[in-house]
């Protein structure tokens, strides 16, 4: 690490998750879909529009005391496919990985089709197949593209 590594612009955390390489301007969206709204006691640091070789401008999030679950990672992969995730334990990077686009997301998104069986109070979790661009409801086959974040139900 060098002195101008952008990661140093936000303070180190003892344990939790650092999400790097979020497309510039989407940090608050990511917090929103992860359900982190400042109500809990987690310390959250946000770096916005940090210069990045890969993305031009990127956002960085540090969330203290919270490791992302698989379904949270799945949502993250849909809105920030370039993101890297660092799991921090004892001030050290315990795990570092790129998000992977899953082939399917279950229970993460609600189907936008009001007439879909998953919106009818049945014991079936909304399930989506991940396409090259967007996702598609396994049950009613509706395709969801740009506005995925509006349908997150984590």
């Amino acid at each position, binding site marked *: 690490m060098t002195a101008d590594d952008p990661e140093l612009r936000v303070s180190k955390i003892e344990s939790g998750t650092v999400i790097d390489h979020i497309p510039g301007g989407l940090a608050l969206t990511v917090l929103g879909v992860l359900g982190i709204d400042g109500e809990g006691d987690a310390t959250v640091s946000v770096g916005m529009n940090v210069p990045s070789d890969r993305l031009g401008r990127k956002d960085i999030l540090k969330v203290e005391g919270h490791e992302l679950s698989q379904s949270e990672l799945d949502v993250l992969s849909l809105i920030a496919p370039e993101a890297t995730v660092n799991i921090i334990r004892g001030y050290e990077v315990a795990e570092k990985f790129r998000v992977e686009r899953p082939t399917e997301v279950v229970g993460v998104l609600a189907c936008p089709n009001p*007439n*879909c*069986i998953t919106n009818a109070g*049945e014991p*079936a979790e909304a399930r989506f197949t991940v*396409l090259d661009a967007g996702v598609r409801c*396994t049950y009613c086959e*509706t*395709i969801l593209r740009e506005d995925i974040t509006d349908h997150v139900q984590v």
Partner: protein
Amino acid sequence: MRMRQDHITSAKALSRGDIEAVLDRAAEFAGDPTAHADRRPGALLGLAFFEPSTRTRMSFAAAIKRLGGDIVDMGPVEASSVSKGESLADTVRVIEGYADAVVLRHPSEGAATMASEFVDVPLINAGDGAGQHPTQTLLDLYTIRAAAGLDGLTLGIVGDLKYGRTVHSLAHALTNFEVEQHFISPETLALPESVRYDLDAAGAAVEEHTSLEPVLGELDALYVTRIQQERFPDESEYRAVAGEYRIDAETLAGIDELPVLHPLPRIDEIQYFKQAHNGVPVRMALLDLLLEGDR
């Protein structure tokens, strides 16, 4: 042969082999539908119709009875436990206890796919909202094959391509054959993105048009779907569009013996009409194949 699919929820899941097995057996049964009561004696078909569809219900009932079986019918929704708030999942599990196969008609899209996850007996989708209606598709394929063949066919599909679920199922199924599909509709009623996506993914030969006249001469058969008044904000707009896509003697003047196929129920956009009445033999064939062997 056995069907690759245990449940028939979507025409998309049917392989070419599945389709041909059903159509070939339907052709055998169509010769004399009354001669096959020894095929499935004692078989019970559960009917779960969450919305009325007299024609489809009667066709399935006739088919299983022609094979020597019988129906167990959930009856109208108002009179059943469904109205007391029982879920679809629970309802089909109950019917499964009485039946060797279940036919489901439901107003919500994806209902059959979901219901099939809760039962072990074959479940047949008889229509799920604006979604799929695979037995209608098999009937359409049977009719088209008899009238004009499938491989090498250039087919025009005209009318409401957006909401017409029979079109969506048929278009998927035709990708199993060497068929060139021409879709003709007003822009507001064009194929939905999800259907177009699948056709492109299947590498289907597809063209979309807003006018029938330029392509009419290339077609081997024409499939007409009903443009429904409720899709339009006012009656005058509906009349203008419905009139433009009406198929009548004038439209077909100079075209030699073009088979025109039209799923019921129909309204005024077609006068020339040639529809095979093979719903029962096709459903007999499907049921016979699904009930074949140990399950």
